[in-house]
């Protein structure tokens, strides 16, 4: 096992600097339109501003992994006297809410860091945020390279999981006799 270098793309979100304009939502939906920029619709955006001016809640959140089920219990966070529901910070497209879903099809959306942009360009939400509430960072991390099990081994171990190792071995033995 050896260590490998991995590039981690990161967007730092400074809640105090957000002016609530939602340019990030607009440009995200425009960039991911087909053809590019041909339309925009913040409801299709992969970043959402959780916005509640009266309580001074301004919280940009990016779409992450799809979750097939909603959480069993939900918590609340109080930060600087402001109450945030747990879902406010959650990146999942999940059945409990309509965030991060295509408005027409309901299919889940996920931030791709604008991977179609030429290399070296920052994601567009960061580019349009002149108030610098969204700051792009890249860092390299050393990560242990996991040993890649062969495909056959993966297949066999899942069969073993399902039927038990003994059954798999017996089956293999029987198959080899037939050959």
């Amino acid at each position, binding site marked *: 096992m050896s260590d490998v270098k991995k590039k981690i793309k990161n967007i730092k979100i400074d809640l105090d600097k957000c*002016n609530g304009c*939602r340019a990030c939502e607009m440009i995200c939906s425009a960039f991911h339109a087909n053809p590019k*920029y041909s339309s925009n*619709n913040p*409801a299709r955006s992969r970043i959402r501003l959780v916005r509640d*001016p009266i309580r001074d809640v301004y919280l940009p959140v990016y779409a992450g992994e799809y979750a097939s089920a909603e959480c069993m219990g939900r918590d609340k966070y109080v930060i600087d006297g402001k109450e945030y529901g747990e879902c406010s910070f959650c990146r999942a497209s999940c059945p409990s809410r309509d965030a991060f879903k295509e*408005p027409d099809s309901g299919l889940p959306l996920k931030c791709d860091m604008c991977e179609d942009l030429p290399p070296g360009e920052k994601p567009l939400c960061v580019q349009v945020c002149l*108030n610098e509430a969204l700051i792009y960072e890249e860092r390299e991390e050393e990560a242990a390279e996991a040993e890649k099990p062969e495909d056959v081994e993966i297949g066999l171990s899942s069969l073993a999981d399902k039927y038990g190792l003994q059954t798999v071995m017996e089956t293999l033995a029987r198959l080899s006799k037939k050959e």
Partner: protein
Amino acid sequence: MRYAETGFNLEIDLSRGNIERVETDPRLTELYLGGLGTNAKILWDRVSPETEPFSPDNLLIFSTGLLCGTPAPGANRTIVTTYSPQTLLMGYSMMGGFFAPELKYAGYDKIIFRGKSPKLIYLWIHNDKVEIRDAAHLQGRGAVETQELIRRELNQPNAQVAAIGLAGENRVYTASIEQGRSSCSRLGIGAVMGDKRIKAIAVRGTKDVNLARPEEFIELCNDVLKYIKDREDKPIPGVMPILAGLGSPQEMKHVDEKWHTENFSWGNSRVRRKDFWTKEVEDKWRETQLKARTRLISCYNCPMKCGAIISLEGMSTYMMKCFTKLTYTMAAFVDDLDFGFRIAQRATEYGVDGFSTPQIMAFAFELKEAGILTDADFAGCPEDNEGKFYWLLDRIVRREGIGDVLANGTHWAAQQIGKGAEAYAHNNIKKHEQLPLKLGMLNPVYFLMYCTGEKANITQIEGQFPQAPFPTMEEREDFVKDWVHVPEEKFKQYLLDWEMRGERSNPTYPTVDMSVDIVDWQEKMHYIDDALGVCAGLSSFPLKPPYHIHNYPHFISSATGIEMDEARLTEVYNRNRNLMRAINIRRGLKREDEKPPEDHWRKRFPELEEKLLDAYYKFKGWNKDGIPTKETLQKLNLGYVAEDLEQRGIINNE
């Protein structure tokens, strides 16, 4: 497919409870663009000039601008149009915020209300689903509070809501429509909404807004963003801080109020306090503002921060922008800014115009001092400056006692009160209260804008050209160096030659013709903004803005696919300008109404003023009475307007 616009209006008949989605004629977009332009066309076509503002036949039109909902930065304005109960002319008031883009995303360019609802209602628009809902439980609720209550009862945290408060419900002539940090405040539009018994409109949209030539359009938007960033790093030297940058006047950001407090008038636009801004006041006011202000905020898709969230101990949070923090403070002669923020909270919930309302109150207390109003009118009113303003505000929005008279604004109240009260309603243009500004020497450019502005509101016309000359040639040369915004090179020379004193200074310089040119340019930019729904704060209002006459045609053509260049855009502006003028002429506007408050400048020049007005009318293709000629109208595809004016005997059939 329609580009930039949706191509559909919502037609709501409140009397019958009928809702229709109506496709619009794309040819009208080419002629009038949208926003204020198409609103004016609808008002001309569908509301006869005899219609009373509070008649069911009056329309109340909520419109997006043509570019609202596109990626164009700052294209977020809602333009609300109707006949004003105060001026009786065409009233249009505009607000930023998030309402117009949301309406576009819901699939509509405009909401057109006609008739009158039998009971208080609110409208809920969720894409194709549009409902008229009962609002009995919201009666008397605050305008900010109502927005929250509706979002909660619909379980729609992302819905945008525009609402009226008690003032609108009671048809106070200075009633506003409030929406987040923004409001349509001027000219009593909220009173018409209340008269139609509409408490609020809530909208949520999740549809696409399309562009004709997206790559080209987005490039233009990127240029604008880059320009804003650079321009913000380079404030214009030699002008006051609130005018040095972009956006609407940065009253929430800046705490230095020396200029306003010492140059604007206190009370009923009477008293200048030239030594007000002491170190002690400055420290105290800074502390108050920074404590009250939780965050600086913007409208949809705009990097500026013209508004603020205001949270004061013991009262609910609200949002504010621009000048309102000072209007109540100064009208009431209160030296504590904390009062300004606190009374504005109540006023915002009531939903009243922060310019006119404080002046009405100052006017009333002046009448009391003069013995024209009596102690009986003010029975129960506290003695202290703060207390008496709160007391009177409560009476006005409830139309109780003397408040019922004052709720009609200074002009109509003075008429009703009589006994010489008219002389105290001294700060009006076309029956509408103006900025409390009293100056020395006549400025010919401002004279023309005050006189001829269809809205009777100076900040909706000015911009582009500096308000005063720069003292040295060096400063002037420095200013014109990167002044790419001028429609023609000659404007640079106008500025270079403009002196503080001597022959080439106010009132005779800029000359009559130059003044007309400058006003025409300033007006043009406002009319284009108001049709496109782009905020004046990024365009017509500040010096050296990101949008101007040279890049606008490209924005319009790449967004919509309509062929556009500077000449065509100028023609659209002239068309909209003349149509608005014709609407007001048909409502009875006369040359004699076109004058600033008599005491606006100490030094007046009647002969020069007549010349200015003559030249302006001539330049516009209007006759001596300020009425567009048949030829002018026909050239602008407004033959139908000429025909109507002819039939009414307003223009000659020759």
